[in-house]
């Protein structure tokens, strides 16, 4: 089954075209990585899929339901998708537990006791069991991002969108967040990741898409795309990443 389909999606901010016709298909339980330079449109694509940005043209289907059609209740759609941001965006005035239960309680109308029980389970599963009562500013960046992931998971999303979730983290904290993604993959979560972590994309992705100037230039399984890229621009991009690492 196809979990998510993006067809011919375009998006411009003013006169600047950010997405110039994107086609993307994500199967159930598949993990898809979007790579590409900053400004290539990865984040915008994820925000468009979560209906946080309106698209100009094209279609987005969740399962076989057109969620980009006019008249669709966007709030209902967002409850079926999860998105995790680069900057965590936790609610600073709420405790970790309240951060995680806010969506289920207010949007899904889950009774408080049930929402909290599930939140405690999820927090414990990702090593945050003792942090439920803390406020976000007492946590490390890695812990905050894990809470943000748990906050999304609490909504039981059909697809999880991850927008460069390790880019704002100190290097020594990246591992703990990537471990969460590894576990989610083995649990069968359907995920779309925008990432700069090429090594991780290679390890975890079923399919990698290289974006350049709002288009998907090349798509292939990671082993193929990283070792024998077909497009010149993909080669140049991967070369620049390699060069940067050597510095």
């Amino acid at each position, binding site marked *: 089954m196809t979990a998510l389909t993006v067809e011919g999606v375009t998006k411009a901010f003013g006169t600047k075209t950010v997405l110039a016709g994107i086609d993307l298909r994500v199967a159930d339980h598949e993990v898809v990585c979007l790579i590409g330079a900053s400004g290539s449109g990865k984040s915008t694509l994820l*925000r468009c899929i*979560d209906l*946080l940005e309106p698209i100009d043209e094209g279609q987005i289907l969740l399962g076989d339901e057109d969620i980009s059609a006019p008249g669709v209740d966007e*709030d*209902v759609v*967002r*409850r079926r998708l*999860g*998105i995790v*941001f680069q*900057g965590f*965006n*936790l*609610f*600073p*005035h709420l405790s970790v537990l309240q951060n995680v239960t*806010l*969506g289920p309680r*207010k*949007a*899904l109308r889950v009774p408080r006791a049930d929402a909290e029980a599930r939140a405690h389970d999820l927090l414990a599963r990702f090593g945050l069991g003792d942090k439920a009562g803390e406020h*976000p*500013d007492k946590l490390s960046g890695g812990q905050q991002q894990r809470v943000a992931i748990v*906050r*999304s998971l*609490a*909504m039981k999303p059909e697809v999880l969108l991850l927008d460069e979730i390790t880019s704002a983290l100190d290097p020594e904290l990246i591992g703990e967040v990537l471990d969460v993604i590894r576990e989610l993959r083995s649990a069968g979560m359907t995920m779309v990741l925008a990432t700069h972590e090429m090594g991780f994309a290679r390890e975890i992705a079923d399919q990698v898409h290289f974006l350049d100037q709002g288009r998907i230039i090349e798509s292939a399984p990671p082993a193929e795309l990283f070792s024998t890229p077909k497009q010149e621009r993909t080669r140049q991009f991967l070369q620049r990443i390699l060069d940067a690492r050597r510095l």
Partner: protein
Amino acid sequence: MTQTVEDAPPELTPRQRYARRQRRRSIVVAAASTLVVATLLVAVVVRAPGWEEVKASFFDGDRFRESFAEIAPAFKLNVRVFLIAEACILVFALLLAVARSSRAPALFPVRVLATVYVDLFRGVPVLLVLFLLGFGVPALRLEGVTNDPVFWATVALILSYSAYVSEVYRAGIDSVHESQRSAARAVGLTSTQSLRFVVLPQAVRRVIPPLLNDFIALQKETALVGVLGPIEAARRAQIYSSRTFNFTSYVAAALIFLAITIPLTRLTDWLLARQRRRTMAGGPA
């Protein structure tokens, strides 16, 4: 801090000794300069040619005790007006701010109304609003509508101050980063729920110090109620003064107002300082 003091070795490093000497020196300098300035001020005032007359008409001990006893009960009216007005303003101003910050196209008329309201009531002196309501409404002789001047004076204060306070709220709402709204929408909240559970709680917390600032001003403005006739503290002081041809009652009234406003001011400063410390510490701004 206590821990470091306990754990610290009794001997200080030369650098620490130097820093401590510097700290002590600044305290001594501050104390000395305060003393000099205060002495000069007192000397100038006391040696002024008219000091004896001023002392008799503004700082008469007996008159002070006598007028204080009359003004203090009248001050209860100020406090009552202040408390009722403040409670109403907090709610009404928040509604105004939310109306002005709304984005839904259907709410455009609400947004315009709120904007016009704020422009109007921020632009007109409180005193005029007070006259218009306090004298205008009773003149209409409407059935079932009170003519109580205290009521209309309180309404006037609420109308005027809500315009100011709504702008304070709105600044708070605008200061909550857009990404917070995104995060709220991302967990499926509607825009109303996002505002209520995510944006407003953060906004209100941030504007508490400036809100207190407006309430200090409001507390003083309750003296305006007197112009419609009700006898509050300042009006009572005026009456005492015209009866005795002595101005000490004004000093007494001023001290009574200060007894409320100074603690409020200090509280505001303390809250602001605490907020600044938190922001600097890298906590949630």
